[in-house]
């Protein structure tokens, strides 16, 4: 069906567009902006007055929990949550069960996602077999089966030799490697190692748990020339190393989870397990550093790091709970706080949620250019609403933002011209 979206503020950083205009969609593709293409007849007109019309968001890290952990989430539910959050493309880590180290698992995830039809779900492949850090995974075959990038998640590759071989092999086939940098031994804890962890008596994870591994990875990236991305960095010093590496001409990029831009370790006071995340919420200085790195182009994308959990996973003393927050539906409103706080302009923010993550992945998404798939997010930047665990579409309501009034709400999401969400 042909759709005309009228009267909205159309923001598409991929073509430096920010104006109140009309968007025309035909046959699932963007058919035109401002002026209707010849012979266009709208089957449906969508009034977007007072709203922002932007490319469907691209989320670089969202755990869909399927296969293997469907008591926490599923492709159907997480896709529905993504659609409600304006996210049309999401990348899911290889830590399913079975792990994404065979083409069959990669295909299963994509088949289920296509069947559901609410979001594009792109699997990441395991960098090593079983994520055990010892033997290379069949990266070429996995890429052929749709794996968009390769990661060992937060599981260690203890041997630098094995890691170097992984990067050489990925470079051979021009594959993207995604690091979720963490030194396994230093990361044995449950929150940032600082005065709050000291006071609460919770085992701390020092900054070095991340920076030591970022440094090792950067050196090996430089040596191998692989395309590399750092996912969910949490420390100011990591961001600085990445900025410095980019200045030296390294082909590296980074993203940050939105909660690391808004919260800090002091939020753990009171032992609310919803603040238990890995990497941990860092210091207020780290938070300030990450925010600056967004401006200095050290960090190109913001993701949800969506990790839905069943209720029991969070009902225990802090250290005994499972880390992670559910975040697909709150990604956009939380990011809009950065605009409200005058850190980013709206188009800058949209870029970090659309064309920039798409460029990191090297995919044709996150844009409203004519001829491209009509993945569109329409949101009311002023709408106030309160997310709740009861109303979430995701399998997990584990988020400290549940019950907090947020500003900015998605009203419509289109995937290839089909409406997959309407408020």
């Amino acid at each position, binding site marked *: 069906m042909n759709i005309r979206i009228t009267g909205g503020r159309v923001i598409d950083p991929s073509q430096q567009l920010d104006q109140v205009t009309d968007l025309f969609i035909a046959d699932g593709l963007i058919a035109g902006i401002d002026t209707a293409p010849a012979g266009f007849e709208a089957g449906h007109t969508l009034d977007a007055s007072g709203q922002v019309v932007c490319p469907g968001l691209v989320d670089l890290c969202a755990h869909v929990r399927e296969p293997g952990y469907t008591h926490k989430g599923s492709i159907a539910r997480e896709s529905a949550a993504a659609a409600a959050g304006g996210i049309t493309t999401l990348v899911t880590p290889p830590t399913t069960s079975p792990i994404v180290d065979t083409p069959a698992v990669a295909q299963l995830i994509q088949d289920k996602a296509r069947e559901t039809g609410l979001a594009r779900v792109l699997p990441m492949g395991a960098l090593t077999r079983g994520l055990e850090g010892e033997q290379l995974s069949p990266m070429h075959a996995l890429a052929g089966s749709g794996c968009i990038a390769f990661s060992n998640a937060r599981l260690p590759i203890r041997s630098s030799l094995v890691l170097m071989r992984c990067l050489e092999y990925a470079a051979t086939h021009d594959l993207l490697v995604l690091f979720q940098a963490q030194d396994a031994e230093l990361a044995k804890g449950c929150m940032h*190692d*600082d*005065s709050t*962890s*000291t*006071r*609460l*008596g*919770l*085992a*701390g994870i*020092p900054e070095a748990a991340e920076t030591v591994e970022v440094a090792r990875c950067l050196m090996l990236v430089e040596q191998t020339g692989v395309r590399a991305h750092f996912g969910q960095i949490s420390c100011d010093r990591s961001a600085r190393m990445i900025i410095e590496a980019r200045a030296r001409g390294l082909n590296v990029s980074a993203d940050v989870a939105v909660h690391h831009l*808004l*919260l800090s370790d*002091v*939020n753990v*006071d*009171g*032992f609310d397990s919803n603040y238990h995340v890995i990497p941990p919420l860092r210091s207020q200085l780290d938070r300030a550093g990450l925010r600056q790195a967004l401006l200095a182009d050290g960090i190109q994308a913001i993701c949800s790091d969506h990790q839905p959990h069943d209720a*029991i996973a969070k*009902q*225990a*003393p*802090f*250290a*005994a709970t499972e880390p992670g927050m559910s975040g697909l539906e709150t990604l956009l409103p939380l990011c809009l*706080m950065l605009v409200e*706080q005058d850190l980013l302009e709206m188009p800058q923010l949209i870029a970090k949620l659309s064309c920039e993550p798409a460029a990191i992945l090297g995919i044709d998404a996150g844009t409203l250019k004519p001829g491209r798939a009509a993945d569109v997010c329409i949101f009311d930047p002023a709408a106030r609403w309160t997310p709740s665990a009861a109303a979430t579409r995701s399998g997990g309501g584990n988020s*400290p933002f549940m019950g*907090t009034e947020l500003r900015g709400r998605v009203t419509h999401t289109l995937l290839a011209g089909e409406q997959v969400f309407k408020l």
Partner: protein
Amino acid sequence: MFEPQDPNRIQLNSKGQLRHFLTTEGLSRELLTEILDTADSFIDMGAKQIKKVPLLRGRTVVNLFFEASTRTLSTFELAAKRLSADVLNLNISTSSTSKGETLKDTLMTLEAMHSDMFVVRHADSGAAHFIASRVTPDVAVINAGDGRHAHPTQAMLDMLTIRRHKGAFEPLKVAIVGDILHSRVARSQIHALRILGASEIRVIAPKTLLPRHIEAMGVKVFTDMKSGLDEVDVIMMLRLQKERMNSALLPSESEFYRLYGMTTEKLAYARPDAVVMHPGPINRGVEIESAIADGPRSLILDQVTNGIAVRMAVMSMAMSGQMVERQHPQVQAQ
């Protein structure tokens, strides 16, 4: 931007009285003094022929120990019995909870038996907060030690021991020596000493046993005994918890003893009337020399006696604070 609220507020009822006792942090000097005064009155009672008072008659106290303990459990049991409560001791080893029942299920089962008070020891920091805030808000929760976080009754019995020997807190310099990193006792002592107004609080340990930014808790940090004990009035030794030493923290017990063990020689660095305390059980020859542990400046056995009185005080106060809340359920809903 999403600033946390005072998490220790849940210890108090709507009138500001104790209804749980989870940590010494964030409590007022008046409240801590009330605990000490109440405990003082129970000490005199312990010397009498009939040692019971009916303050908890008809109440059920469950000692819920997820971590092994002999002396803390027995003093809590004795304290509850002297208050005339019905007492149930449950030693729940980690192996039985790993059979599948969660901590939450265990507690809800016990709550359904109409228990009035849980005395909880657990290996995880925050366990007592979790129980009081998320699981059984209508049951008074007394923290008998949670991970590395807090051991408030131990700290209060230490405060009672100090007050009975030294009088006021204001002039005192107090040093806490040993494994600060893993010690819930040290954390609760530091909060209590600050609130009660001790003039200086020091910690003495090698850097491997000092948690990050401990100075933010209001203490001075020393890494050697000679300067750390200089002019000190009270020395609080900590247990070197060997079972928690899961990595390369110390070269050997003997080197630790040589550098940080409390010996006659090192005691001479402190004031001539300085007293030595230890939460027990003591490792003779690792943390403390026998001659000091058994000597005239040791208050180790006084601590045990005072422990019963402090636990009676806290249990009776928390129970009455909890009852106020039960009579006014609408306050809780606010």
